[in-house]
Structure formats: structure tokens, C-alpha cells
């Protein structure tokens, strides 16, 4: 049975990765992913035109700080967030709008296996695209402004890539479920965005009800959020990551429950 499920998930991956990454539906994903790359290109180009880098960005530590800020604001808290909103909310909602969900529902596949397959394909697709963007931006900034040793570079890059994959896991699970329950996906997307944005200023207890809080423990460097930031004890890595995976798993169970009850209405007969 496991091998059948695995073959079925592979079958879904074949279709869904193409849909998420290589179809017209993927255009917003690429537009969002292009933003941090464009910002990086502009920063490097302006620095080249002026002949030297601003002092705060020069040298390995400056480049590391510059990328950390770009990653926080230009990737994690904005473009990556909205990319997960677009792709994961449309996993089932898009099929309903296209009237093509029956293609899967008429197959001998457990609906929760379908949820797992579609989620995995979107997770792989979005994470890969943003991983490439992060590597390109990191490489461009450190090549121009200065780079630390190979060990540091590899360690930091690995941490940033892990954050991308974990963020896609967490936000993806939330938005896939939101797409199954809500008719208008804009409202939950804005609400979660607001909650994640004000996370810095929330009391320690409330911080824990956000995705971004658990990702903080993975960041390779600390960046100050300003004088009004409320400091909370970060969650240890060994709790944060498994907790994250368990949270996503539970969310997928909710999605599986909802999809089993889902009906397809074709037309008035």
C-alpha cells in the first residue's frame, strides 16, 4: 500500500510541480521572486556606479548585514509570504475555479494522499524558486561587497535556505487550509500578514502564535527590529523545528478532513 501511495504522490508531483512552476499560474510566483533579485541588482549596480560601497555595507560583516536585511524584508516577510499565499491557496481553490478538481476526485486515490501530494509539489516548487533567488542575491552581495570564509558562507546559506523551506512549510500549510475553508482568500492573507508584521512588537506569549517567531531561531545573525522591539526568549532549535513540522502536519490533517467532505457540483441537471 505504501508503495502505491508513493507512486500516486509521484504522479501528482509530475502534474502539480509543472502547474506550480511551469505554467501561467506560476507567473505571479516569478514576478515576486524577481523583486529581491532586482533590488540586489540595483544596490550592487548603484555601488558600482559610485565606485565604492557605503561604509556600513563594506567588508564581510557589512555584506552579511545587508543580505540579512534584504532577506528579512525583501524575501521572508514580503515576496516569499505572498508567493506562498498565491500558490498554496490556489492548490485546491484554483482547481475548483478551473472546474478540474474531479480529475483527481475520480481517481482511486485517498483524498488525504491527494492533499499530501499537492502540498509536497507546491512546497518543493516555491522553495526551489526562492532558494535560487536567495543564493543568487547572497552570491551577488558577497561577491561585490566582500565575503567571509567558505565555512561561514556555507553555514549562513544553509541557514537561509532552511528558513525558506521551513517558511514554505508553515505558511503553505496555513494557506492551503485557508483556501479550502474560505471563499475569499484575500482576507486571511491580509490578516496573517498583519499578524506576522506586528510580531516584533507583540508580548512574548503572543509572539509564539506566529510562524516568523519560530523561524527566528534559525537566523544566522541577529538584526535589531528597532527600539520598540519586545525581546522574547527564542525557542531552542530542537524544539522549534520539530514543533514546526508537527504544526504543519496537524494543519495538513485538517486539510485532509476538509477535502474528504468536499463535494463537486458540476451543473444543474
Amino acid at each position, binding site marked *: 500500500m505504501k508503495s*502505491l501511495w508513493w*507512486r*500516486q504522490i*509521484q*504522479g*501528482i508531483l*509530475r*502534474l502539480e510541480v509543472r*502547474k506550480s512552476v511551469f*505554467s*501561467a*499560474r506560476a507567473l505571479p510566483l516569478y514576478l515576486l521572486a524577481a523583486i529581491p533579485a532586482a533590488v540586489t541588482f540595483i544596490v550592487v549596480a548603484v555601488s558600482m556606479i559610485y565606485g565604492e560601497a557605503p561604509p556600513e555595507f563594506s567588508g564581510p560583516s557589512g555584506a552579511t548585514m545587508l543580505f540579512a536585511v534584504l532577506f528579512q524584508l525583501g524575501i521572508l516577510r514580503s515576496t516569499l509570504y505572498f508567493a506562498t499565499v498565491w500558490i498554496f491557496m490556489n492548490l485546491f481553490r484554483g482547481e475548483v475555479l*478551473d*472546474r*478540474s478538481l*474531479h*480529475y*483527481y*476526485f*475520480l*481517481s*482511486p*486515490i*485517498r*483524498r488525504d*494522499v491527494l492533499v499530501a501530494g499537492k502540498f509536497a509539489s507546491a512546497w518543493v516548487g516555491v522553495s526551489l524558486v526562492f532558494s535560487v533567488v536567495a543564493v543568487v542575491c547572497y552570491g551577488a552581495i558577497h561577491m561585490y561587497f566582500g565575503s567571509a570564509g567558505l565555512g561561514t558562507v556555507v553555514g549562513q546559506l544553509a541557514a537561509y535556505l532552511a528558513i525558506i523551506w521551513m517558511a514554505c512549510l508553515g505558511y503553505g500549510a496555513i494557506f492551503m487550509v485557508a483556501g479550502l475553508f474560505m471563499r475569499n482568500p484575500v482576507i486571511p492573507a491580509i490578516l496573517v500578514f498583519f499578524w506576522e508584521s506586528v510580531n516584533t512588537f507583540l508580548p512574548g506569549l503572543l509572539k509564539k502564535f506566529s510562524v516568523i517567531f519560530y523561524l527566528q531561531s534559525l537566523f544566522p545573525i541577529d538584526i535589531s527590529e528597532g527600539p520598540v522591539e519586545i525581546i522574547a526568549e527564542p525557542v531552542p532549535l530542537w524544539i522549534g523545528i520539530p514543533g514546526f513540522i508537527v504544526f504543519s502536519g496537524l494543519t495538513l490533517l485538517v486539510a485532509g478532513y476538509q477535502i*474528504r*467532505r468536499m*463535494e*463537486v*457540483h*458540476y*451543473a*444543474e*441537471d
Partner: protein
Amino acid sequence: MTPTSDRLVFDNVSKFYGEVLGINQVDLSIPPGITSLVGPNGSGKTTIMNLMTGLLQPSQGEVRMLDIRPDNPEKMFRHVGYCTQFDSFPRGVNGHQFLYNYLRVHGHPHSAATEMTERSIARVGLTDAARRRVAAYSKGMRQRIKLAQAIAHEPSVLILDEPLNGLDPMARAEMIDLFRELASTGQHVIISSHILHEVDLISDQVILLNEGYVVAEGDIEGVRTEMSGRPLQILVRCDKPGLLASKVFEHETTVEARMHEDGGGLLISTKDADTFLIAFNRMVLDNEVRVESVTPADADVYAVYQYLITQEGAS
């Protein structure tokens, strides 16, 4: 994984869309063969098909397909194929990919999926167009590729929602032959159609629906016979229609006898066909009438549909 029953069973099934009735208290036990669902728009045909395939869940009652519940798709869709009415396909795929990907989702490995895809596409006569994008297909071709999808995994229950829509006469004849071929091997073929004379030609049994209720079911002649309130019409072609008409009028079950326009026959209405036909044989022998043919004139699905649905709706 052989099914334990060969029946498709609806046990007191109702389906409501909010406050709107889909079907109400439907009891069915459908044997193998070609079964047609007949009824006007909104009568519940597609609702029944969607309940059979788990796309809808009953508000009340239970559906069992070959003793498998439709909420167990991993088991049921090994045996069931559904050709839906709607023209919706995954974007950007060609005919071959449409089927191949579907079979991969079933869990078939590459070689088996390829072989089944090609065989099914050939069966519906789309081999030449298999590599063209489905979006560029004509309505008839899309109908055929959906049919190919429904039969690709060789199901023992084939459910077809308006399968002849959009097909030209030649393709219709080919499809009807295919349905007969499938039914002759002991499969279930469930068809909904508005084209009554085609339904009449191919069906082993019909289920007549109106406003969410099953108004009749069974083989069409049996349904017609049970309609005791409606005199049965019999067309007799013979050499002495005038003489025969006078004798027929003497029989107590005769309601009406009309001469045929060409003078070579008689249209008789009787309220008890069995009794009448025994007496009719005696009349023919006693009066030395040469009979060319005796055929029921309103024992087809069209007549039954007219009596049960159109006039019921009108009354």
C-alpha cells in the same frame, strides 16, 4: 480485490442542496447491463451519477457500488469510470498526457500507463489527434477523450453523463457499439441521455426520473405493462382491417380501434394486453384474417416518458 456484489444500490437516498431538492428517497438496485437514466433537466440524473461516484455525498441514505461505498475512492475507482458532462481539463495537456497522467495518478508505472493510454485512445478513434492539445479539440473529440479516460483502466462500472452529446452520427453509432460491447461482457453501463430513441435502442433497463423522484424503473416493456391506467396501443397490419375492427370492438378490454391511414392496418387500444391478445388470436383464426405484423405502438421509452413525465408535468 474482487467486489462481493454485482449491484449498484441506492438505499433510501436523498440529496438536498441547501433547501433545494436534488433527489428524494431513491431506492435502486441496478444489475449489470446498460441502464439509462431518463428525465428532463433538473430531474436528478447528474445528481444520481455524482452520488454514485462520491462527488456528492448523500444527505440521507446509503449508496453502495458493487458493495463499495463511494467515500472509499481508492477502492471504488479501481472498478468505476465516470465520463462527466462538463468539458473541463487540466490546462495545457494534450490527449495522450491527459490520459497518461490520470493513469499515473492511479499508481500505474510508466510502461503500463503508456500502454493503457494508447489502447484507450485507439478504442475511441483518437490516435491521430492524441498529441494535439485538448484545448484545440472539437466538442466531439473532447467527448471522446473523456470517454477514453473513463474506460482507460477497464472499469466494471462505466458511468456516462450525456455521452453522445456533440458526436456526429457515425461517432454515435461507434460509441453505442462500444457500450453494447462493454455491457455484453457483464459490465454496468449507466447512461444519462436526452436522446430517447437511442436510449430505447441500447438500454436493458431504464430509470425514469422527474423532479428528484424515480417515477419508474425496469425494462421498458415491463414499465409500460405496469402502467395499467394507460391503455396499451397495438398496431396490426392485416388484409381485413375493417372486419377485424368490428370483432375487436366486441371484446371487453378494447378501448379504441382506429383504421390506419393507408387502410392496411388497425391501431387498437386495450386496457389488458395479455387478455386481449389471447382473444385476438381467436378472432384472427375464426375470420381467416391474414396478419402481416402485430407490434406494440407505445411500449417504447419515448411513449413511457410522454405518459409519465411530460403529461405528469403538464397536469
